[in-house]
């Protein structure tokens, strides 16, 4: 396994964009094969063209509401600018989606300040794996990282995280399975303070957002960090499974009620899922997507770049040669 990490370290040198492009190849292929055929099959912009476009967006999990808004916006702009050409229309669409998904300038500020990063989300989205990757990346960039194993519920979760932290060579604060997650976080916060860690990453148990007690537990954990480490820069990342449909919106909304969400990680974008939910969330909740997961390697957790993401998403086959 350690070989794998070294390998992935080498691969990193290939450059961010080529890796992103590789990871998104299938994503791009499916969405753009749809779009390309639309754009080439239509010689003019008419109702049928719009309808096809609408369908493609919905099939990418962008959701009915966000799609309608995007389409209304597009129609308006097309009218305003007297656009007649479907190709130009495509560029407009890319721009408008890209605009919605912009990442604020201070999105990764937590890397530069003593910070506590809480990672939350429903079951099976990839929280532990994302933390493992993030821990490795931060460590590689010379940061002192501590990881808290606050998922004390799922069988094997602590061991899973331990494997990751061992690989990354960072310290893990954990207790036994079934212990109080708040106590683990308490310990970890104190360890982070006394050892002057740059970043404390907290793994939490997966919880469905409609389980009141579990959501309250999260609130409690947050309070402990607030109280014990008020100077820490706070980052709370919700992890969403890229294959999830409209429910991801409900997840983001309801996690937002118990925690001050600062960003989103969208995982599993290396499958055929189109990740359109990212667009819907940016649009409806104004929470920026900060990372995407596009594979199993440690560097397959990538900072989210709306421009290359959107362009990669919409690029026709000929554009890939660039």
């Amino acid at each position, binding site marked *: 396994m350690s070989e794998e990490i070294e390998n992935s370290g080498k691969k990193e040198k290939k450059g961010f964009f080529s890796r992103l492009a590789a990871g998104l190849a*299938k994503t791009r292929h499916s969405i753009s094969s749809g779009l390309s055929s639309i754009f080439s099959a239509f010689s003019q912009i008419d109702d049928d063209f719009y309808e096809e476009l609408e*369908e493609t967006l*919905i*099939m*990418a*999990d962008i*959701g*009915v509401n966000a799609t309608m808004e995007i389409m209304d916006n597009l129609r308006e702009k097309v009218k305003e600018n007297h656009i007649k050409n479907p190709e130009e229309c495509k560029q407009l669409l890319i721009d408008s989606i890209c605009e919605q998904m912009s990442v604020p300038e201070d999105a990764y500020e937590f890397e530069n300040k003593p910070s506590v990063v809480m990672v939350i989300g*429903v*079951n*099976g*989205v*990839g929280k532990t794996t994302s933390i493992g990757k993030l821990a490795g990346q931060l460590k590689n960039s010379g940061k002192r990282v501590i990881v808290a194993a606050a998922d004390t*519920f*799922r*069988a*094997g*979760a*602590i*061991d*899973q995280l*331990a*494997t*990751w932290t061992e690989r990354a060579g960072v310290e893990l604060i954990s207790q036994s*399975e079934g212990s109080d997650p708040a106590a683990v976080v308490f310990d970890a916060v104190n360890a982070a303070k006394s050892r002057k860690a740059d970043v404390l990453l907290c793994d939490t148990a997966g919880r*469905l*957002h*409609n*389980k*009141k007690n579990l*959501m309250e537990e999260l609130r409690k954990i947050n309070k402990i960090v607030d109280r014990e480490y008020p100077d820490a820069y706070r980052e709370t990342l919700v992890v969403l*499974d890229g*294959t*999830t*449909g*409209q*429910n*991801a919106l*409900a997840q983001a909304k*309801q996690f937002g*009620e118990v925690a001050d969400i600062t960003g989103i990680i969208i995982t*599993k974008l*290396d*499958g*055929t*899922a*189109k990740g*359109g*939910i990212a667009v819907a969330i940016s649009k409806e909740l104004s929470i920026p997507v900060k990372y995407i997961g596009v594979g199993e390697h440690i560097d397959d957790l990538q900072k989210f770049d709306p421009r290359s993401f959107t362009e990669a998403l919409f690029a026709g086959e000929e554009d890939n040669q660039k």
Partner: protein
Amino acid sequence: MAFEGLSAKLQNVFKNLRGKGRLSESDVKAAMKEVKMALLEADVSFKVVKSFINDVTERAVGQDVLNSLTPGQMVIKIVNEELTKLMGDETVEIELKSGNEPTIIMMCGLQGAGKTTMAAKLAGKFKSKGRKPLLVACDIYRPAAIEQLRINAEKVGVDFFQMGTGHAPVDIVKAALNHAKAENENVVIIDTAGRLHIDEEMMQELITIKEEIKVDHTLLTVDSMTGQDAVNVAEAFNSKLEITGVILTKLDGDTRGGAALSIKFVTGKPILYIGTGEKMGDVEQFYPDRMASRILGMGDILTLIDKAEAQYNEEKSKELEKKIRKAEFDFNDYLEQIENMRNMGGLSQIMEMLPGMGMGNVNLNDFDADQGEKGLKMVESIIHSMTAKERANPDLLNPSRKNRIAKGAGVDIADVNRMVKQFYESRKMMKQMSGMFSGKKKGKFKLPFGFGG
């Protein structure tokens, strides 16, 4: 978009239709537009929605609207029926071989779908049916996956087999079968690593197992929150591995679960079980009709009725129903209802199953179950402080009796008054409900709700 939303929209579409009595093509088309939106919001695959809408439109046009229904309800009735038909007409049980011949079950699915947890849950389920299951750990990739299965195997009290991460899964399975034979174990459940359906190498691993071992059931585990991609996943797993059934997980969330319909549509394979919680016992049979209602956003009222029915013996409920009809329902019955309700899994579980609750817009966070439980306890203590006569005849209660009861229960007289008022209100509501549901084919609605507190 809860049922109320769809229903209201359909009422709007049909508001000019009152009295026409027959669904015209343009009416149906307008209604179907709303149904289409509802299905898409529920994550049913676009392709599936399109084909479904065409079929239903065809069937609905020209239909007479039943006397008792509004046109909107008539459309929902047709849509629901067609949806149920699509979901599969009946509940399918997994077939286990008789005697000591082992039935081999292989789990498969994407990462994070819930395979490992579900494998253990199924083992527990089979064990409770008198089988002797063996759990086999073949996820040699995800850190601690083996450990997770081992702990869960222990929790459900079944045997567990592993060979670490250094062997090919097919070899682990072979060794496990020998182990099962030696131990007389007759259900072998193979947990496999999560994999992408487009990862040829990883898919080949499962194909190899199927080629070398006679797997009886290949079960695809799918996260019920999956979006449009569900069709691609299901199609790929099915074409490569010929799955025999599907398991939907995380249905205790508030997802509408449209993926269920998409998967059934593209594979034709039955959905066997659903995962409904974190505990090892949280696995249930799949009921197509209930899933149809859920996708449409009609709540899982049938599950609720079913759960309620299981708690009552038939005679008692008939008696109760009569009482409700005649509004003879008294405090003794009320008390009994509270107990029954607890047995059904507590307030919050029941609330979640009601239409509109726990779905989309309505937020269960707004309903404080603990507070509800406290309220129930108070109601109980008040009733316990009544005399037998008072319990059997609520109308007896006068201020001085109420005062005595309040003292006995250690509460304020205002609490007693409130509780009595609520009792009458819920009695009234129950009477209405029993009338409302009595025409339905699924049996009568027998669950009175006295959400005291």
